[in-house]
Structure formats: structure tokens, C-alpha cells
């Protein structure tokens, strides 16, 4: 069996974070009554004149800058023609040539190996509405129709399912960081199509590719691409050829299935949109937008590692989302032990946020709370173990940690006279272990530490317990 390599390209669609739609002033807002936010433009009525949203141009250009693209001073809108009930005009307004941005790249790291993925182009386009398939009828809600999107098309430079998911994570982090999208994948603000083909390792020609549509989570991207690579390998090993087609990922069964469509379904007959003038980006505007870009996630991660002494894992967890990194830096302003704050956030805070499905900024437990908890550990008032034990309660209640530990009597026992009694008790109760330790089994020290901790309900100062035990056990 020959070894294959996968060749993957992603087309990412991101809903732009604007207040109004791409070509009309209708509000971009979800959860309203069906068709509450529509007008003659976004409902595709004849004779309506579209007018481009400036903010959408700014956000698309900023995405291009953040992804090292050239931003074209002039780009054009075209009509992409096809029929579906959620597309009221019978065409999508998109960009063919030239798009607003092209020739960029993004570095993606998987298992310590960093690879550069080319970005072919970024173009502006409008979103379709939504269909509700009912009995005997399809119901159409056009509230989403006309919302501004950018489509980011990568080169076929991705080589594994894991790398595809990592690329999507990096795109997500950057777009959210620069405020181009809210990044809410569950609500479809960010979704992608994956083009997948395989070829014998070492070959430079491309195999026949399939396109998997509408992947809306990092996990689904990874699993769908994984499945598709295995499926294509199976086809080739069985002597079958791969059919160029569009496939859908079934997240429940974890398989991709063919969406058999007519051969000419992809004949979109693009032509320049005569209603829209070219999109112009002036050099001064571009300079101003570049100056407005915040520190990007990768740069921030490096700074956290190099300047604050965090490890790769902590820095990655804290910079995956801008809000989390901002939160971390707010806490740092109140407690200068960066390592301690990072550990608390990575090990406790982010875990609770994920479990309770709460965004860091929305948690009752804020940056001041994290800073205070870190300070309590630094001051030796509580142990890291106690911090871990009380964290879920603190997180849920939003109580200030210092008041909480005082009230609950959790303040660490750092008084050696108090602990000496407990140490003596533990040694008296475990004569066999004491003998063992004195006979050279020094690893038993942790057993004694555990016993002291149990008796003090975790409140004993661990460093003090260690030294007291060593001292007592050393005496004969």
C-alpha cells in the first residue's frame, strides 16, 4: 500500500461585525421575528439600489492586513447566479476578480511544527436568508439575507485534519481579535468548507478533490477531514477512482455523505454587478486601519512567553481568545505574579468557564477575583490545593476570595507550634512507616505530608509541614 498525503484547502466564511447589512441599512440582528429586518434591497426586489457599507470594507481590509495580504486599492463586485429560495435576488453579490485582499499567509503550529499556509484571497459577499423546511411548504426568513461576509480562501497547503482545525482556530482568534466577527460558530458567524484530496507521498500533482460543506465547529472540521481522507484512501486501495463532488458531514454518524447534484449546478455565470461602483481603498485609509490593529494573538502569545515567563501551553490557552488575554492582563495589573495568575486561569478559571459555558468577560468571577486569589496563595494564606477546592464555589458565587477564605476558616495554618502537634500525632499513629522512613525509604515523606494534610483538612502550609516532618523524622 502506497503512503498517501492529504492536500487540504479551506474556505472560511465569517459574518462581519457591523450594525447594518452589507448593501442596505437593515439591522444585523438575530432572534427577531421572521422578516422583521428586511427591505427592498436585501429582499431582492427589482429596481432596488444597493449601497455598500463602509465598515464592511474596513473590516475586510483589516482581516487582510492581519493575514499579511495585499489589500487592493480597487476591487469589484460580481453577481454569482444560482437559484434557491433563500436567495431572493437569484444571485449572490460577491467578488471574483479582483477581490479586496489577496496573497497572504498564516503560520500554523501543530505538535511543535510550524507551517506557513498561503491565503489565496479574501472577498466580500452577502449572506443568504434561512429556509425552514415544513410540511408541504418551505418557509423563508430573510433577516440574515444581505448580511456582510468575508470569505477567506486558503491555498491547498494544509496537510492534515489536525492542521485544518489549527488553521481554523488561528483564523478565528485573529478575526475576533481585530473585531471583524463575533466568532460565534454555533450561530454560524464563522463556518467553513473544506476541499480535500489525497496523493501518493512525494507526488506534486493534485488528486481529484471533494468539497465538504458547512463545517461549523473546530471538532467537526477535524473529524470530517479525517473521515474524508480515510474514505479516499479506501477508494484508491479498492481500485476505485474519487468522484469530484460536494459532500456533507453528518456529525452524529461521523461520516461525510455525497450530496449528488447536477453537473452544471456550479455554472454560476459570474458577471460584474452593474449596480455597484468599484470598491476603492485609499492609501491613507489603509494606513489608519493598520495603525488601529490590536496586538495579534500570535504576537501576544510570544510576549507572554518571553516577557512574562509563561510556558507555551499557558500562553496558548490565554491568547486563544482576545477577551481571555485582556482578562489576564487586567488581573496582572492587580497581582504581579504572572505565572501564578496564568496557572490559576489556565487550570481553574478557563475550565470552569468551559464547563458552565460562560464567556470569561461574563463570569461573576472577574479579573480582580483571580488577582486576589493569586495573591492569597502568594502570601501563604491558602495553599494552591485549597484554591483548587474552593474554586467552583467562588466562580459560581462571585465572592471575593479573601473574605471567603476568612469566613470559611480556610486560612492556612502557618503556625509551627500548632502543626508540630499534628505532626507528632501522625508519627505516633504510623510507627511502621516511621521505621521505614528512618531505614532509608525517604519516599514515605509524601505519605506523612498527606496524613498531616488530611488531619488539617488541607489547611496546613505544605512547605512548613515538609520541614517539620523532616525535622521530626530525623530525630531518633
Amino acid at each position, binding site marked *: 500500500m502506497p503512503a498517501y498525503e492529504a492536500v487540504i484547502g479551506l474556505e472560511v466564511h465569517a459574518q462581519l461585525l457591523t450594525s447594518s447589512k452589507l448593501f442596505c441599512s437593515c439591522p444585523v440582528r438575530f432572534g427577531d*421575528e*421572521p422578516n422583521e429586518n428586511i427591505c427592498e434591497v436585501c429582499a431582492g426586489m427589482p429596481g432596488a439600489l*444597493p449601497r455598500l457599507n463602509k465598515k464592511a470594507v474596513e473590516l475586510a481590509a483589516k482581516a487582510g492586513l492581519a493575514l499579511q495580504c495585499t489589500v487592493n486599492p480597487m476591487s469589484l463586485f460580481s453577481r454569482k447566479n444560482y437559484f434557491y429560495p433563500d436567495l431572493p435576488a437569484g444571485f449572490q453579490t460577491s467578488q471574483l476578480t479582483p477581490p479586496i485582499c489577496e496573497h497572504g499567509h498564516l503560520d500554523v503550529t501543530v505538535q511543535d511544527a510550524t507551517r506557513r499556509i498561503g491565503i489565496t484571497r479574501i472577498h466580500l459577499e452577502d449572506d443568504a436568508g434561512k429556509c425552514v423546511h*415544513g410540511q408541504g411548504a418551505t418557509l423563508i426568513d430573510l433577516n440574515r439575507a444581505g448580511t456582510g461576509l468575508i470569505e477567506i480562501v486558503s491555498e491547498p497547503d494544509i496537510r492534515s485534519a489536525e492542521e485544518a482545525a489549527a488553521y481554523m482556530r488561528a483564523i478565528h482568534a485573529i478575526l475576533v481579535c481585530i473585531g471583524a466577527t463575533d466568532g460565534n460558530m454555533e450561530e454560524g458567524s464563522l463556518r467553513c468548507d473544506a476541499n480535500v484530496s489525497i496523493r501518493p507521498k512525494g507526488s506534486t500533482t493534485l488528486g481529484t478533490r471533494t468539497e465538504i460543506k458547512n463545517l461549523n465547529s473546530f471538532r467537526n472540521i477535524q473529524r470530517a477531514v479525517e473521515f474524508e481522507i480515510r474514505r479516499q484512501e479506501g477508494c484508491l486501495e479498492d481500485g476505485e477512482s474519487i468522484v469530484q463532488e460536494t459532500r456533507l458531514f453528518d456529525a452524529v454518524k461521523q461520516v461525510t455523505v455525497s450530496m449528488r447534484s447536477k453537473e452544471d449546478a456550479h455554472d454560476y455565470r459570474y458577471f460584474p454587478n*452593474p449596480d455597484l461602483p468599484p470598491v476603492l481603498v485609499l492609501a491613507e485609509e489603509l494606513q489608519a486601519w493598520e495603525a488601529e490593529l490590536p496586538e495579534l494573538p500570535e504576537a501576544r502569545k510570544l510576549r507572554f512567553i518571553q516577557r512574562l515567563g509563561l510556558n507555551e501551553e499557558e500562553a496558548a490557552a490565554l491568547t486563544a481568545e482576545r477577551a481571555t488575554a485582556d482578562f489576564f492582563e487586567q488581573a496582572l495589573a492587580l497581582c504581579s505574579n504572572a505565572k501564578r495568575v496564568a496557572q490559576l486561569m489556565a487550570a481553574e478559571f478557563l475550565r470552569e468557564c468551559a464547563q458552565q459555558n460562560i464567556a470569561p468577560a461574563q463570569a461573576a468571577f472577574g479579573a480582580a477575583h483571580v488577582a486576589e486569589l493569586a495573591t492569597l496563595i502568594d502570601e501563604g494564606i491558602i495553599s494552591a490545593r485549597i484554591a483548587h477546592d474552593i474554586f467552583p464555589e467562588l466562580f459560581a458565587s462571585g465572592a471575593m476570595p479573601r473574605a471567603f477564605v476568612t469566613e470559611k476558616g480556610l486560612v492556612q495554618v502557618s503556625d509551627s507550634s500548632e502543626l508540630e502537634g499534628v505532626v507528632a500525632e501522625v508519627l505516633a499513629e504510623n510507627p511502621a512507616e516511621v521505621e521505614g522512613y528512618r531505614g532509608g525509604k525517604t519516599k514515605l515523606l509524601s505519605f506523612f505530608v498527606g496524613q498531616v494534610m488530611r488531619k488539617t483538612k488541607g489547611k496546613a502550609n505544605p512547605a512548613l509541614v515538609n520541614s517539620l516532618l523532616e525535622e521530626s523524622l530525623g530525630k531518633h
Partner: protein
Amino acid sequence: MAVTEQQIRKIAGLARIDLEYGKTPQEAEAFMARLAGQMDAIVGYIDGISKADTAGVEPLFCPALHVAPPREDEAEKKRPTEDMLQNAPERKDTFFSVPPVL
């Protein structure tokens, strides 16, 4: 280049237009031939334009450069839903309703 009947059928298919609707096979054939001739004349005209000498002429990307300039991102609800639904052949609550596509 002559436009063929086959091309006419393909374009009509993409545009969801049934050119044979209500016609006998003979009528449909004659109609198709007539459309092919008309289309041929249009394409021939464009071919003629494309032969014009444009050396030294700046490309014109849009005939209406100053129509519909970009606008600020300000949301405003301009149309009551009821107005927007007035042209709907069928509706259900405030949805447009169309024949099932699934």
C-alpha cells in the same frame, strides 16, 4: 462563432426557463432556432466591440462610478414587515412561503 441550440437549452436550463412549455415539438424546434439566431446576433455585436482598438484607453470597470457611493454603518429599520410581505404570493405568519424544496 455560431450559437448552437444546445447552448440555448443549457442557458435556459440554468435560468429555469422552460422553452418548450405549451409548444408542439415542431414549434419548439422553430422557436429554438429563432432564439439561436437572435443570440448569435447579440454575441456577434459584442465580438465586434471586442475588436475595437483600445490601446492607451483606461479600462472602465463600471458605467456608473458615482452612483450609489458607500454609506456609513448605521442601522435603520425602514420597512414594516407587513409592507414587505405584501407581494408574497403565499405567507405563513411573517414567513414567505414557497413550494417545498426538500
